[in-house]
């Protein structure tokens, strides 16, 4: 039942709707008592042969009016209560979504998309039920049940009423116990569902790999296993679920037996008339629904409880990296100084970066090279404040980047990630991602600088071409260049190119580098690459090895150092010499 307290904020926000709805519900409960009474009057009148046309007319009009009134009221409470529950789903979904947009990469490393999706679907569903059917059942059972009990107590015998109600606490105790059981089991079942969702999501995203390896059958098996788990956990829920009605029926039967036993004794002792007992039992019959409703209520509410706490658990995860108080809200500009002793990724024991000390002058280009896993991407991620938690500082224009508003820092940065992600809209919209309302001429200009314009023109729909999820219907190099164009469109103060020319051919690479050189004069650029051709013209090059800077300088000075850079250079040269030699042999 805790969830009803937890949802206080919501009920008070929708106070008006709920009060109107519940009032309408109560009025209906009262009006419902009219038709039987009217039937009674008419039957009596007919029996006594006293019925007149006028009287019949009057009662019929009253019946019609109450009927219509009830129709209207029923309509109103449904729209108010169920409408609110749909509204709750909307609010929760929106909260989850905005919360998701604030979570840092380390959150997404721990959580999986399918699981997060399950929260946004199944769990929200269960909470919605609580705010709708749950609340309805609560008030419905209280009003009808309460009313009937009052009638029993005051118009017949409070003593007998008390006796009949003796087993009720047992029932409440049992159902709330089941409720607790149910909550835990339901939570586990929801987790199993999350797992299934994860599996489906992953298989669909990785379908190409599964097909390549011909492992569809095995994958279906592994899906089946998870879906069996879902069945198993849901059966455990069902086992509790199934207890509610029989328990209530059983308790209720005891009530009946008690009332009869004592009822007849009261009759014998003259405390009760026979008619009273007959009426009493028919009232007891009216209690059946409110009693069953209590079980139903516990059932729905505890499910909501489990789901709500699952959602709350997600919502209570702190957004990883937030603005400091008094954060600077100017756009960064100037030199970038790295002064890092060590950096560890969250959940990682090893330091991924160590002893990074270098300066990038405003307007210069920095080249970063190093073996796979050397930490090139890590440097860029730190600069973007995707991760913090390093010892030392990174300053931009003399101010530590941690002191900027994240918003401002990122406004200055155009990022071309190593793994390009495109959204499933048109090419144009993907390029204009940072500013959908931008002048189309600028989109074309950015596309031209990224040398993707020509490609786009060959498509039938040009900039209106849909790219599919993650850009599946583009070639690798096209995707990469769209992603470059997207960053160039911002004309950023600082451009980060993370191995962004790996999927393009030499001619395109050359052309892009050339246009970068032209357009980025006076602006800072960082390029990481495995191909020296992409960085050898940089003002400064750093060579990373296992997270440490081992060499630093421009191309010529690095060549002179005779170290790792020279080695790499020679290797790439050697390759071409071997090629030429190999070619000459044949």
């Amino acid at each position, binding site marked *: 039942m805790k969830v009803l307290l937890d949802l206080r904020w919501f009920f008070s926000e929708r106070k008006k709707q709920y009060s109107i709805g519940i009032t309408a519900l109560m009025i209906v409960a009262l009006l419902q008592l009219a038709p039987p009474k009217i039937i009674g009057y008419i039957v009596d009148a007919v029996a006594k042969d006293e019925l007149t046309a006028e009287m019949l007319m009057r009662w019929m009009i009253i019946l019609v009016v109450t009927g219509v009134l009830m129709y209207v009221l029923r309509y109103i409470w449904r729209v108010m209560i169920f409408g609110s529950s749909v509204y709750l789903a909307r609010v929760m979904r929106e909260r989850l979504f905005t919360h998701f947009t604030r979570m840092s990469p380390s959150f997404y490393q721990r959580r999986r998309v399918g699981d997060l999706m399950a929260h946004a679907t199944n769990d929200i569903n269960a909470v919605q039920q609580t705010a709708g059917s749950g609340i309805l059942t609560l008030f419905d059972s209280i009003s009808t049940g309460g009313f009937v009990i009052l009638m029993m107590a005051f118009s017949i015998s409070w003593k007998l009423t008390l006796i009949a109600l003796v087993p009720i606490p047992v029932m409440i105790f049992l159902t709330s116990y089941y409720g607790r059981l149910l909550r835990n089991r339901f939570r586990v079942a929801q987790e199993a569902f999350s797992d299934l969702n994860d599996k489906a999501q992953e298989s669909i995203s990785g379908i190409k790999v599964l097909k390549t390896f011909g492992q569809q059958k095995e994958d*279906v098996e592994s*899906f089946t296993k998870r879906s069996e788990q879902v069945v198993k956990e849901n059966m455990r829920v069902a086992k509790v679920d199934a207890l509610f009605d029989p328990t209530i029926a059983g308790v209720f039967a005891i009530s009946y037996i008690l009332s009869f036993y004592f009822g007849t004794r009261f009759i014998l002792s003259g405390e009760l008339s026979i008619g009273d007992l007959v009426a009493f039992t028919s009232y007891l019959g009216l209690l059946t629904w409110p009693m069953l409703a209590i079980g139903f209520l516990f059932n729905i509410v505890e499910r909501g409880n489990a789901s709500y706490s699952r959602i709350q658990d997600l919502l209570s995860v702190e957004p990883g990296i937030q603005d400091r108080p008094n954060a600077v809200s100017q756009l960064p500009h100037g030199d970038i100084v790295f002064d890092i002793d060590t950096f560890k990724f969250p959940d990682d024991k090893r330091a991924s970066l160590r002893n990074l000390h270098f300066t990038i002058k405003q307007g210069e280009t920095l080249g970063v090279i190093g073996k796979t896993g050397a930490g090139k991407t890590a440097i860029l991620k730190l600069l973007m404040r*995707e991760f913090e938690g390093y010892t030392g500082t990174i300053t931009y224009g003399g101010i530590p980047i941690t002191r900027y508003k994240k918003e401002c820092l990122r406004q200055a940065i155009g990022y071309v990630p190593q793994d390009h992600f495109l959204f499933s809209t048109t090419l144009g919209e993907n390029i204009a991602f940072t500013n959908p309302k931008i002048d189309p001429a600028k989109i074309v200009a950015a596309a031209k600088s990224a040398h993707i314009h020509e490609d786009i023109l060959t498509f039938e729909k040009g900039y209106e071409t849909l790219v599919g999820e993650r850009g599946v219907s583009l070639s*690798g190099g096209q995707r990469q260049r769209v992603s470059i164009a997207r960053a160039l469109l911002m004309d950023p103060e600082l451009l980060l190119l993370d191995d962004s020319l790996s999927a393009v051919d030499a001619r395109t690479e050359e052309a892009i580098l050339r246009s970068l050189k032209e357009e980025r004069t006076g602006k800072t650029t960082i390029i990481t690459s495995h191909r020296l051709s992409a960085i050898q013209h940089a003002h400064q090059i750093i060579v990373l090895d296992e997270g440490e800077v081992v060499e630093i300088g421009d191309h010529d000075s690095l060549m002179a150092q005779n170290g790792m850079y020279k080695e790499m250079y020679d290797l790439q040269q050697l390759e071409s010499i071997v090629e030429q030699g190999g070619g000459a042999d044949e």
Partner: protein
Amino acid sequence: MNNKQKMSARDQFKTFMRLAKYVLPMKKSALIAILLLLLTVTSTILGPLVIQRFLDDYVVPLNFPAKEVWTIALIYIGLQLVNIIGSYFQTLRFQEFALAIIQQIRIDAFSKVQKLGLRYFDQTPAGGIVSRVTNDTESIKEMFVSVAVTFMQAIFGIVGVYIALFTLDGKLALYTLILLPLFLILVSVYRYYSADFYQDIRERLSQLNAKISESLSGMDMIQAFRQEKRLSDEFIEVNEGHYRVGLRNIRFDSLMLGPFIDLLYAGSIVAVLSYFGTASFTSVVDVGIIYAFTTLLRRLFQPINQVMQRLSMFQQAIVSASRVFALIDNPEIEPKQTAVSTQHITEGTIEFRNVTFSYDGKQDVLKNISFTANAGETVALVGHTGSGKSSIINLFMRFYEYERGDIFIDGVSLKEYPIEELRKKVGLVLQDPFMFYGDIASNIRLHNEELTDEDVREAAEFVQADQFIEELPNGYEQKVTERGSTLSSGQRQLIAFARTIAMNPKVLVLDEATANIDTETEVAIQKSLEKMREGRTTIAIAHRLSTIADAELILVLHHGEIVERGTHAELLAQKGLYYTMYELQNGTQE
């Protein structure tokens, strides 16, 4: 995605029958569940009758013969026990049986997804598909739990009431039969409109989920470009739309369902009372009949009301089911094998003969591609980006169907091999590595349990991944998060490479398999590949010409056509496109 068409009553009926078919294999357990239901329904009807009897026979005359009273008490207790036990098992049975059906539908849908061609995935967002496989199936469940039970209870109830009505007064009972077509009209009007409404809301829900799913996958991009606000706003709009449609459904349901039935009930009471009332002016009317009639009418309306309450669930289940079935029936399946050949791929000779291909049926992406790779040779594909290199691979891997021209391995058309043979013998390293949730070893092994730890390690060694893997705190057991987000891009590529090497394919296809890998590692991999070249045909795509220079055949692609072919030396001598590309690459290194 588009099943925006209106579902006709027939479509709905078909969907319903198709759902019902899922019950067939579970006939027995369905039957048991229904029998249990009958048992509990009967005991709930008999319970009050026993009490009535007790009142009439013993309480009213105030006569309590011990033996009879005990018997009747025991009968009552017995009935209650039957009810309690019966209803427990009945609920359990229905749940069990509903879950089993949902599971079957889920598996069917998921297996179908595995059989769909890549074209389908190009067009459909993953989130939308997941939503059908897991969420739409979930909302079918209610059909077999609450809807089925309520409908059956209602049928028993209605039949019972009618029997009572007819024994009471045949003529009047006939009049009340008018109510039945009235209900039917109501149901069909409801169905007519609500089918649309529910289709609309499921579709919107699916869009909503696709939106969440895509945003979750691209969250780092959204954040890097500060588009959180915009995306949230877009989401809020979709969410708002979904909410509005949800409200509309509630309004419509409230107008047509429960409250409306109550109104009808009030109307019929008015009619009955007026009838008897007016009759009483001229003749004598039996009061008991009026009483019985109004009571029975109430009893008749009760189950009907319950059915109407469940109708929206029913509608929702049918619409969801139709969406799942639309997925199961989707014709966009993967290329079919005619599989007449039982021949195994032994040599690995590959021939492309006049292959022309288009993704959209309009623009040819590949034009008249012909070449032969002899067994054990390496063929390299080079060309500008977007020239069609990966598309050649897409056809060779049977990801997309081709109609013009043909491809042969060992002289047999690709279409004639059983797909298992192709998958076993042809290994591909994709341009974009995909990591599965799990650990490093499971990512190399995938579902192939035959690979020993030793095989896995050897494969990793082959691609030079062993060094970094062994440095990980847990080595091969190191956890891999979703999409391998804690590995560097090059590391992911190495693992994907190792995965293919581990299966030891006869034909190896490399689509820029080392694009994100440093030169030193790349050279080492080249060396290992060279050692293993014997008896293995290789198709390699690379932008770094150095990596393919010793290929036996180099094909230069330009706008989907092979414009030059030959060995490295021959091509250089031709001084064509290849020559310029090569010069450029070495030129920039000066």
